[in-house]
């Protein structure tokens, strides 16, 4: 990895470099930087051992006022009660409550109206802001990069480091510009865009890099659509994905509980306007896409890079150049029960899951409701719609979206990670095919033997009402 602590020629800096430079506390020559963390998000699954480490070392949390906890990964979604839940999950949830109490950390607990998936509540509370460094023990922390923040996932040891010192040791990553020209067409979403990118660069394509997304197709997106793209950046191997803040960002933030007010707001916006990368700033790599050429996408294999335009045939493993790739592709098709040359389009579907930190926000639910309004879930298909937060749930109910889902025969749930990670009983049974708006289609991810097709909320809703994989544009 390059260790570039000096600005590029002429002093032109990328958005990433500006944030990085601002947050380096100290750096030994040739060693990693000590990076200050502005916001630390915590959830129940990756924190217990970190708090135990602090306790064992007799240390306190340095900045409880920069720490926010919620519970999301293994929380039930049928009810807000833990009665009947997995005893291990209950133990873990209670452990988080005890830890937050002991260390003085604000916790959005199970019965809080502001609880939800950690990467949904941060932004909606106005806690995620441009120019910040944000970490969490969860790889989809990249989501917050949509605000022009440097946000990335960390392991439990690093969670302990941040709790104790508000800092991390980090080597400076390389940078990759992702320039997206054109504009997404009708029925084509930012989920399809990020699936198309990962299909192009591969699941290891971004390793060692942070991605900066730019171009007219990106600028045309709402904040929620931008979050989908940054969320799945990690599936392309890159820890962080950033989008420069602009008026869309400031409009989203204005008035949110964590955002500054009055003269402080004006000062903040003035500062944030300095963040976008300078003209002439150089990147280690550039990747280009044309949004005009992107249609609804769907995964067919067992990693997010194995994705296709929805009507395209499943590729033939034997056509791949490398033995390892051939073996991996053949294995994936065997797991998914698909044949080379087969169309995923019109494949029968058992379950549809609409939710997750990728596509569980109000914009996503509106898209799904657009397809499902006045239609009914196909016979034999089970549909779960899980809002990303209790605030999203409340807003969706106020707008009549929940009624649309219920009248269509879908299950309307409480907020949580739910079937994305299948830790709370919401899962696929062995062999079942599920169309999911989540972010991972690994073997067994949504339940042992479960077979996942990743897709957009529009595509998922179309599958729900047709019972087979369907191009959503035929229903719009």
């Amino acid at each position, binding site marked *: 990895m390059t260790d570039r602590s000096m600005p590029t020629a002429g002093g032109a800096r990328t958005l990433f470099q500006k944030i990085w430079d601002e947050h380096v506390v100290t750096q030994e020559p040739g060693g990693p930087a000590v990076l200050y963390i502005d916001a630390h998000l915590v959830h129940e699954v990756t924190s217990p051992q970190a708090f135990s480490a602090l306790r064992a070392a007799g240390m306190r949390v340095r900045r409880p006022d920069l720490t926010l906890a919620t519970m999301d990964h293994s929380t039930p979604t049928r009810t807000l009660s833990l009665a009947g839940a997995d005893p291990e999950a209950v133990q873990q949830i209670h452990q988080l409550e005890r830890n937050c109490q002991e260390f003085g950390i604000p916790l959005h*607990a199970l019965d809080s109206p502001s609880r939800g998936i950690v990467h949904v509540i941060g932004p*909606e509370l106005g806690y995620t802001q441009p120019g910040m460094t944000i970490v969490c023990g969860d790889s989809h922390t990249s989501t917050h990069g949509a605000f022009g923040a440097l946000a990335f996932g960390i392991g439990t040891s690093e969670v302990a480091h941040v709790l104790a*010192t508000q800092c991390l040791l980090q080597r400076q990553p390389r940078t990759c510009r992702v320039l997206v020209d054109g504009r997404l067409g009708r029925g084509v979403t930012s989920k399809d865009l990020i699936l198309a990118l990962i299909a192009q660069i591969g699941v290891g394509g971004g390793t060692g890099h942070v991605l900066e997304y730019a171009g007219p197709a990106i600028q045309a997106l709402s904040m929620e659509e931008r979050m989908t793209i940054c969320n799945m950046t990690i599936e392309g191997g890159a820890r962080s994905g950033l989008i420069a803040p602009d008026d869309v960002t400031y409009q989203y933030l204005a008035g949110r509980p964590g955002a500054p007010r009055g003269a402080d707001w004006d000062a903040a916006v003035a500062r944030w306007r300095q963040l976008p990368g300078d003209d002439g700033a150089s990147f280690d790599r550039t990747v280009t896409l044309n949004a005009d050429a992107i249609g609804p996408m769907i995964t067919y294999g067992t990693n997010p890079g194995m994705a296709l335009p929805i009507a395209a045939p499943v590729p033939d493993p034997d056509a791949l150049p490398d033995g390892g790739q051939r073996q991996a592709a053949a294995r994936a098709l065997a797991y998914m029960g698909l044949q080379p040359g087969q169309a995923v389009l019109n494949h029968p579907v058992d379950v549809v899951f609409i939710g997750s930190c990728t596509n569980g926000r109000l914009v996503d639910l509106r898209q799904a409701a657009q397809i499902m309004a006045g239609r009914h879930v196909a016979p034999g298909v089970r549909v779960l719609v899980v809002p990303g937060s209790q605030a999203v749930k409340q807003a969706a109910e106020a707008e009549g979206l929940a009624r649309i889902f219920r009248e269509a025969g879908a299950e309307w749930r409480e907020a949580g990670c739910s079937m994305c990670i299948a830790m709370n009983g919401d899962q696929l049974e062995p062999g079942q095919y599920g169309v999911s708006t989540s972010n991972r289609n690994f073997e067994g991810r949504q339940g042992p033997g479960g077979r996942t097709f990743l897709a957009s909320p529009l595509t998922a809703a179309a599958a729900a009402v047709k019972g087979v994989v369907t191009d959503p544009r035929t229903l719009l």
Partner: protein
Amino acid sequence: MQPFTQFSSRFVVLPNNNIDTDQIIPARFLKTTDKVGLGRALFFAWRYAADGTPRPEFPLNRPDAAGAQILVAGDNFGCGSSREHAPWALLDFGLRTVISTSFGDIFRQNSLKNGLLPVTVDGETHRRLLALASSSPEAQLSVDLASQTLTLPDGQAITFAIDPFTKDCLLEGVDELGYLARLAPRIAAYEQAHPARVSTLDSVQGRLPPAGLARSQEDAPPSRREAPQGGAGRPRS
């Protein structure tokens, strides 16, 4: 953390590319509040049949894998989720080094924090190791961190890269938490120079839902349509 210096052992091979951390340790095993005991669940779906008995053909279940402390894996090992339970499971099983042509970034960082050494080799070396596993399943490899050397049974030494800071931490068994904690004065100086941040405890005038510190508290719903209060916010640096 125990110092990592050098050792020799047999090795076991999982040649698949893109082995993600969900395969290394499925999510249902992440409900533990502890670090130990995860070795039983390592590669669970691949290791055990539906009835819970070990699959004899899985490489880690084969007799010649006994005592292996080195795993040779396909490209992009450890991609996906940030769960540190992945290196914990590998270590608890008895592995101390993973060799691949590339690693997921977060997995590599997590491994180094726990004394599991990720060694990156080129494609040709990787192919040699796979061939060696077929021809001599009981062959031993040697790993020497100080000289950054992986030695094959025929004596050929392959140098691997590792940054000096991380290497020293591993050689000495240094806990990075202690290292960072000793920087407290510098961190305090940084905070002095960059004072203003977004406070999660700022529930003055209802600006943030007063998140409870215990589960039984009622919270006010977040309101984003309040009239600007003026003066209550803190400027960010």
